[in-house]
């Protein structure tokens, strides 16, 4: 039993699997983006090669930085996103671990990488890192609430706070999924903000503030952050797949697993597409956009779900 | 009469001492020699009365005993008036024209850095274009300066360049 848990956490579908899958997702994102931009794009081993290169480099910790927090934050970011992954149902209706209320835990665990980025950037004490950190936080307040609301709405309709139970509910009432399509769009937009992708890559806007929060990071610590971001991409996409696309979950392991990969890569491809067709917004424009359009639609989604729930109950 | 000749005539009418100092080299190119003492009034007149509203550049020249300064003034219709004035090398003082053209700032800093001219009334600011730790009294565009002097140049010790 114990050996089984260790296998699940460390190898499959835990640490090893998610790191490899994260890099694969990064590759798909980069390659697809390149194709859209009429380029050849990187070879399949590029994310891995980048990782090896970074690990081989010297870690430089700025003299003025708070070394403890500076070193801790990349690890925090990785652990938090992996932990969140274990609570998400992947190819079946049952997640590896689940309890009543794990939806809230997953959403909160997913905010930790953002916080880690903020703290890491802030305690680097570099001027670009600090601007990046402030922007990370400002942006966080703009996308987090729409994301909460968008994921909350299906949960309300399913009348459960457990991700596994939500997927069970929707796999029985597949047609109700269509109801949540606005929620899916909003969650996708919010995910762009969370992953700091164009048009919301404001905290790491290369041409303005070098690399934002990550400016002072190098070597292994940067490699950890890169892994954390890759994992966040997979976890975020998996969460969206579990909540908004929970079909075909009773096909058994092999078929179900393939379907799961297809779903996640579909969401990754959508993110790539979105990042190729927009320019980066300014931070004030991003906040405006989120509060003026995204949050109200998220509220609307919530109300619609509540009304439909009332109708079903009767 | 062409417009160029008209400009020449008006200048001579206003400033008698310019009578044999203005030449029209080709259409749209007028060259004028102006003594340093009369330069400010002539400049003021050309800019304000003759509508030379564009300062294309200021060229500094090393002319042996003197430093030469050419102000290339242009009109909207393409006529360029080159006002040439000289100042002795031991007292190379000219007045700034930044009050007419704020953009002249960069051109005048070049004269200061590269030829060792002294520009009266030039607003403070970063130097241009030489590095901050460039030694004093080294003016690269002067004819007696050559690249070999760069090697012999004393590097200011302990002075940190920002």
């Amino acid at each position, binding site marked *: 039993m114990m050996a089984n848990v260790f296998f699940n956490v460390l190898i499959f579908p835990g640490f090893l699997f998610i790191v490899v899958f994260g890099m694969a997702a990064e590759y798909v994102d980069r390659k697809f983006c*390149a*194709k*859209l*931009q*009429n*380029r*050849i*794009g990187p070879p399949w081993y590029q994310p891995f090669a980048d990782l090896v290169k970074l690990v081989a480099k010297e870690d430089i910790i700025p003299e003025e930085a708070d070394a403890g927090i500076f070193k801790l934050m990349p690890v925090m970011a990785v652990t938090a996103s992996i932990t969140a992954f274990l609570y998400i149902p992947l190819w079946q209706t049952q997640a590896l671990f689940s309890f009543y209320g794990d939806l809230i835990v997953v959403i909160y665990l997913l905010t930790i990488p953002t916080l880690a980025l903020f703290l890491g950037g802030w305690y680097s004490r570099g001027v670009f890192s600090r601007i990046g950190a402030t922007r990370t936080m400002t942006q966080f307040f703009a996308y987090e609430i729409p994301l909460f609301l968008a994921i909350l709405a299906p949960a309300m309709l399913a009348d459960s706070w457990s991700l596994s139970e939500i997927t069970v509910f929707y796999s029985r009432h597949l047609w109700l999924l269509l109801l949540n399509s606005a929620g899916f769009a909003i969650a996708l937009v919010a995910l762009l903000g969370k992953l700091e992708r164009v048009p919301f890559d404001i905290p790491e806007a290369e041409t303005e503030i070098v690399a934002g929060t990550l400016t002072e990071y190098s070597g292994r610590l940067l490699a950890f952050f890169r892994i954390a971001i890759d994992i966040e991409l997979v976890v975020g996409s998996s969460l969206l797949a579990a909540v908004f696309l929970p079909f075909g979950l009773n096909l058994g392991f092999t078929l179900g697993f393939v379907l799961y990969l297809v779903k996640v890569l579909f969401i990754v491809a959508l993110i790539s*597409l979105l990042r*190729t*067709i*927009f320019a980066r917004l300014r931070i004030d424009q991003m906040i405006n956009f989120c509060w003026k359009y995204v949050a109200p639609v998220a509220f609307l989604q919530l109300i619609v779900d509540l009304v439909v729930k009332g109708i079903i109950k009767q | 009469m062409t417009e160029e000749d008209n400009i020449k005539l008006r200048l001579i009418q206003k400033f008698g001492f310019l009578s044999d100092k203005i030449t029209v080299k080709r259409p749209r190119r007028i060259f004028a020699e102006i003594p340093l003492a009369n330069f400010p009034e002539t400049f003021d007149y050309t800019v304000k009365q003759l509508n030379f509203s564009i300062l294309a550049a200021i060229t500094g020249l090393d002319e042996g005993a003197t430093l030469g300064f050419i102000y290339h003034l242009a009109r909207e219709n393409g006529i360029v008036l080159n006002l040439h004035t000289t100042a002795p090398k031991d007292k190379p003082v000219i007045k700034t024209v930044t009050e007419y053209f704020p953009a002249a700032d960069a051109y005048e800093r070049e004269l200061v850095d590269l030829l060792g001219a002294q520009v009266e009334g030039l607003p403070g600011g970063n130097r241009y274009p030489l590095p901050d730790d460039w030694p004093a009294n080294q003016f690269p565009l002067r004819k007696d300066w050559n690249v070999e002097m760069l090697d012999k140049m004393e590097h200011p010790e302990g002075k940190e360049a920002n």
Partner: protein
Amino acid sequence: MIKPGKMMIQVLQSLFKKPATTLYPFVKTEMPDKFRGKLKYYPERCIGCMLCVKDCPSDAIVIKKIGEKKFQAEINLARCISCGQCVDSCPKDALETTKEFELAKLNREQLKVVCNEETCSSSETKT
């Protein structure tokens, strides 16, 4: 007229197009005919007039007399800016630009090319 995602259609069309980029070191590119690459020297045509040496903007070429009506050229490829002025200046067409452009070497000494009748036959310039 405002359309968010205006480039969407073109971007999606690109999926089915051949990429505009090439995998350069593996796929070689052909230079245009007038390309000014590495210099080629014909020692038998040279009369030692030194016009090329005089006109070279970066002092990349030196012509030495090594015998009766025999000359050798020392071309420093590290200095050469590929302007082709020496070819224009030469009255006897003893210099020629080639399409060769991959000239990187591990050290500067290897970029100095000596051409005379022994080291380079009239058809081949050796490095």
